[in-house]
């Protein structure tokens, strides 16, 4: 398999994106003005096609893992860091997802960002993001993974801070980067620990059962657990899990295509990909599985619960992303290959419908002139038909409407969670089901509030009508915008079913990545299916219940939402205030740090500087005290001093000589 050109030249995908980024950055403003999106689009499209073909090659190959060395980046005696790519089912799948969804979003963005001020800058940063994301999923060296991990963080910083003149955007960008850095802090330490224990950073050795894994386990149980926990810490930072998820809702300050591409489909899944990639390590590490499970579960529930009462359209979707990521980490927490495969399956389907949801919100925002408050919109289905129908498909998929892709992937996760033994997993399964219901409810709420009912705000309604009728800036829903929506809608409807039925839930395909006999595994999987039918039924019922409730509450004007809000006032307040996590973070982390900083500053001026001046003052003080009064101007005193000195010395010398 490694001889096929698609695998051998897989490095072309990131290379082309990098080239596009450089070209757009240099030539963007001056020559490409309106066509600045083309290089990025071409790169993404080329990447999509190339990775699709690579995926096909990998799928057919019997020995699906191939290492593609590209260049030696840095060698210092025993440290060898090489830009070496690994093509195997997992990375090929992720690569295809990133490039395919990426190209659709870039197409949409070319329309959406058409009249923005930094048009070329946007597309060069997106191209740079595609380069770093594709490299991240392909690279086969832990340090290079860290390099692109940080580069992806940089791109999200630049793109969130795209409207840099808006203070809240700048603050959100900084917050995103710093929180990511906190995650990377743990990730870096994990890498260092691996390097110190295994002496190498290349996946080839670290993931090899006989070498890396054996050295890690040999180094004692604590080392492997610490390594996995530290790596997971990086994943928590990047994929916005419980303690470090505060940056994702603020990241919505960036333009919507960015939210779709980075903060929904690709970057946030980097953490899931990394944990999936290192599942062999996580499986061996005692206790780490439960930590991942718990964190995933807590994140899923909190995010879903907060999303219930959010008024900002994009923030609802942001919390929904966090919640879905929580699901994926729940699956990964099981620690089995099945769990990892389920998580990746969900990543794949989630990319489609979440990207579609965001693009839908983008087109809505475009129509309402940047208005995001869900309560001020309403009845937009008349004006934006394509957006409405595609949004509906995505919403149903997210809610887990039977037979749609969300249903299959979420069900796979819930199935693996329920099958796994242990009390924690049973509890997690229950929470998973509740969260599924909440998911269905809040996405239904968002859908009905935005698209159904009567427009609640006159100003917004005129704005939308004016937008739809006025041909000045082209049709409300031009083809370049509709095409990606439709493709994504088809994807979010069919992908789940196709994969679940035709490819056996990706299990045989991805098993190759973990060096497990695909066949043996498949059979084990099959008999478990019987039990799964019950699970499918249950999750379908839960989804429909959620959607129905949402229709009851928001489909048509009803007093229920307000009445419920009063009765469950405390819960409502918790949800609206997002569990006060932002404020907690401020009080527990940021304020003390700034206080310590101020203390350090004062300490520096007073203590350390004072100490130095004190040392410098000692000689001056001694002179003033002892030496200066000696000169009192009296001749006899001077004579006395001289004579006494002479006499004493004379005595000493004479007695010394005489051997006295």
């Amino acid at each position, binding site marked *: 398999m490694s001889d096929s050109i698609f695998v051998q030249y897989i490095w072309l995908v990131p290379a082309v994106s990098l080239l596009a980024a450089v070209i757009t950055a240099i030539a963007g403003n001056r020559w490409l003005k309106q066509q600045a999106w083309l290089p990025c689009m071409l790169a993404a499209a080329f990447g999509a096609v190339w990775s699709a073909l690579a995926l096909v090659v990998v799928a057919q190959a019997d020995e699906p893992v191939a290492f593609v060395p590209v260049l030696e980046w840095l060698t210092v005696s025993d440290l060898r860091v090489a830009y070496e790519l690994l093509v195997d089912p997992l990375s090929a799948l992720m690569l295809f997802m990133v490039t395919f969804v990426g190209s659709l979003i870039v197409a949409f963005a070319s329309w959406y960002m058409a009249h923005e001020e930094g048009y070329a800058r946007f597309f060069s940063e997106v191209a740079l993001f595609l380069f770093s994301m594709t490299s991240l999923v392909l690279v086969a060296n832990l340090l290079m993974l860290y390099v692109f991990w940080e580069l992806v963080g940089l791109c999200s910083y630049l793109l969130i801070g795209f409207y840099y003149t*808006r203070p809240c955007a700048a603050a959100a960008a900084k917050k995103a980067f710093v929180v990511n850095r906190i995650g990377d802090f743990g990730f870096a330490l994990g890498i260092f620990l691996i390097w110190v224990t295994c002496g190498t950073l290349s996946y080839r050795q670290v993931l090899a059962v006989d070498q890396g894994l054996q050295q890690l386990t040999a180094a004692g149980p604590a080392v492997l657990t610490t390594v996995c926990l530290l790596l997971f810490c990086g994943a928590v930072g990047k994929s916005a899990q419980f303690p470090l998820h505060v940056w994702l809702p603020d990241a919505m300050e960036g333009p919507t295509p960015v939210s779709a591409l980075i903060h929904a489909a690709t970057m946030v899944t980097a953490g899931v990909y990394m944990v999936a990639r290192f599942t062999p390590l996580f499986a061996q590490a005692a206790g780490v599985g439960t930590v991942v499970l718990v964190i995933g579960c807590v994140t899923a529930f909190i995010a879903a619960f907060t999303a219930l009462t959010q008024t900002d359209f994009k923030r609802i979707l942001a919390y929904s992303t966090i919640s879905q990521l929580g699901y994926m980490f729940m699956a990964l927490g099981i620690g089995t290959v099945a769990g990892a495969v389920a998580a990746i399956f969900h990543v794949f389907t989630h990319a489609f419908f979440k990207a579609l949801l965001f693009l839908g919100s983008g087109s809505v925002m475009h129509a309402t002139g940047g208005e995001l408050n869900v309560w001020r919109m309403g009845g937009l289905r008349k004006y934006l038909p394509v957006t409405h129908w595609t949004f509906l498909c995505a919403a149903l998929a997210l809610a887990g409407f039977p037979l749609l892709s969300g249903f299959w992937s979420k069900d796979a996760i819930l199935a693996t969670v329920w099958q796994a033994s242990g009390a924690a997993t049973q509890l997690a399964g229950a929470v998973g089901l509740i969260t599924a219901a909440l998911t269905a409810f809040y996405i239904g709420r968002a859908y009905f509030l935005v698209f159904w009912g009567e427009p609640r705000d006159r100003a917004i309604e005129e704005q939308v009508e004016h937008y739809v009728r006025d041909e000045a800036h082209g049709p409300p829903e031009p083809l370049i915008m509709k095409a990606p929506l439709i493709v994504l809608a088809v994807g979010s409807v069919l992908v789940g079913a196709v994969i679940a039925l035709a490819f056996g839930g990706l299990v045989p395909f991805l098993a190759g990545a973990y060096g497990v006999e695909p066949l043996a595994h498949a059979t084990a999987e099959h008999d478990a299916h019987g039990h799964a039918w019950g699970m499918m039924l249950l999750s379908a019922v839960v989804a429909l219940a959620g959607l129905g409730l949402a229709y009851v509450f928001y489909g048509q004007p009803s007093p229920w939402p307000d009445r419920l809000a009063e009765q469950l006032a405390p819960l409502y307040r918790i949800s609206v205030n997002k569990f006060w996590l932002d404020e907690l973070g401020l009080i527990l982390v940021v304020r003390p740090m700034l206080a310590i900083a101020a203390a350090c500053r004062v300490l520096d001026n007073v203590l350390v500087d004072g100490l130095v001046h004190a040392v410098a003052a000692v000689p001056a003080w001694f002179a003033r005290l002892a030496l200066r009064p000696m000169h009192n101007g009296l001749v006899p005193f001077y004579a006395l001093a001289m004579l006494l000195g002479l006499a004493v010395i004379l005595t000493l010398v004479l007695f010394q000589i005489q051997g006295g």
Partner: protein
Amino acid sequence: MHWLLLIAVVQPALAAIAVGLLPLSRGQSRAVALGSSLVSLVLTVILCLKFDPQAAARAQFVWAVDWFGEGGVRFALGVDGLSLWLLPLSTLLTVVAVLSSWESIRDGARGFYALLLLLETGMLGVFAALDIVLFYVFFEFTLIPLFFIIGIWGGPERRFAAVKFLIYTFAGSVLTAAGLLYVLVAHYNEHGTWTFDIATLVYQTTIPTEAQMLLFLALFAGFAIKVPVFPFHTWLPLAHVEAPTAGSVLLAGVLLKLGTYGFVRFSLPLVPGACHEAFPWVATLAVIGVLYGALTAMAQEDIKRLVAYSSISHMGFCVLGLFSLNHQGIAGGVLQMVNHGLATGALFAIVGMLYDRYHTRMIADYSGMARIMPRLAVLTMVVVLASIGLPGLNGFVGEVLILLGAFKASWVAAMLATAGIVLGAYYMLTLMQRAFFGEVREPLAGEHAESAGDLRWHELAALIPIVAACFWIGLWPRFFVERMAPAIDVIVNRSTQVSRNESTSKVIRLVRRAPSPEARGS
């Protein structure tokens, strides 16, 4: 080809004398200064390209002549793996310094540029010196021009800052002189011959175990103050705040490296046993320096002070890397010296440019500068990202190597130092957010409206090469690391050799004679 180094080092001094004596106008003197520094830059770049990587442990381009009579002190210049990259750094930053003070220095420009060129010779001399006395002469000589630059063209409190800087640094380096003298004597006692060549002294002298720690402390005193290591840093913020832009660029860019260069040239190879012993508390000081520098930087209002404390934090990294005494640590330390020089030099130049336009350094005064000066904003963004160690730029390579080395030495120190990176990201990006992003508000708008244009040619010419160097080191570090690796191997072998013997509590002389000094044959 050995004259290449000689001319690069001596030529600025001749130009300085010319600028000083001839009655040149402001324009002429700055033109001569720019010309001379450019010549040096070109020469050092050629030197780096012609440098033979395999023989990096041995001094190349050696030019030696007897200075104090026969067989005694020699005026010997040469470059080896350790000092190779510091030469182009010094010449590049001098060019940047000349360019960044193109418009800002009005009165006494002739004297200013003469001193700047003298400082360049001093810096290059320290890095290229092969003779211990010549090293110390240049080591002290660099203080004088900078003292006058800060003292005459500085800010309001310049005299106090200049005096404090001079005395503080000089007090430390006097102890170092004592240390170096002891080495000479120790060598004489052991071999019976007087030699002043650094390579022979450092690699062939056996320091008796009881004197090792004492010698280490003596050397540490001088170099630690210059680095500056944590408790000895209070002169730096004051000197930077008061120094003119060019002074700050060179002070932060190169003079701080004299300390770490001293460590790597003398302390590490000479008394490795003591370095092992001292690692715990040196690492603590370094880590405190990292965290303390970062935290104090966070609380600063004045940009220059913020950058000064950030350079304390970065140099803390350097020291941590050097004293971890393994290949990665030392390679990271040496590389971080160059990286920090580039990043902080550029930052100070940028602060200088802002100061020339608005005559204020308070962060609170600036907001939304990116809209007014997009080119400056882009360049500042790159330099800020380089200084917080973002992959793809030079800071990352240095810091990762240091942290890997430090982690091998002691995981606690590495963990705390990595926390330093997070703090670094916080205060640097806060600076970017508050000064360059957010809604546009020019400090004292209108009064300086005309000069508030985006970067002029001389400012661009100053920053572009640095940014290019940052990308080059960040994207292709092999080129740099492999040229210093052999020199570092010698140090690491000596320290592992000694530490292995240390366990037998008897220091035996290094069996494999260190690279025979080619210093004799020119």
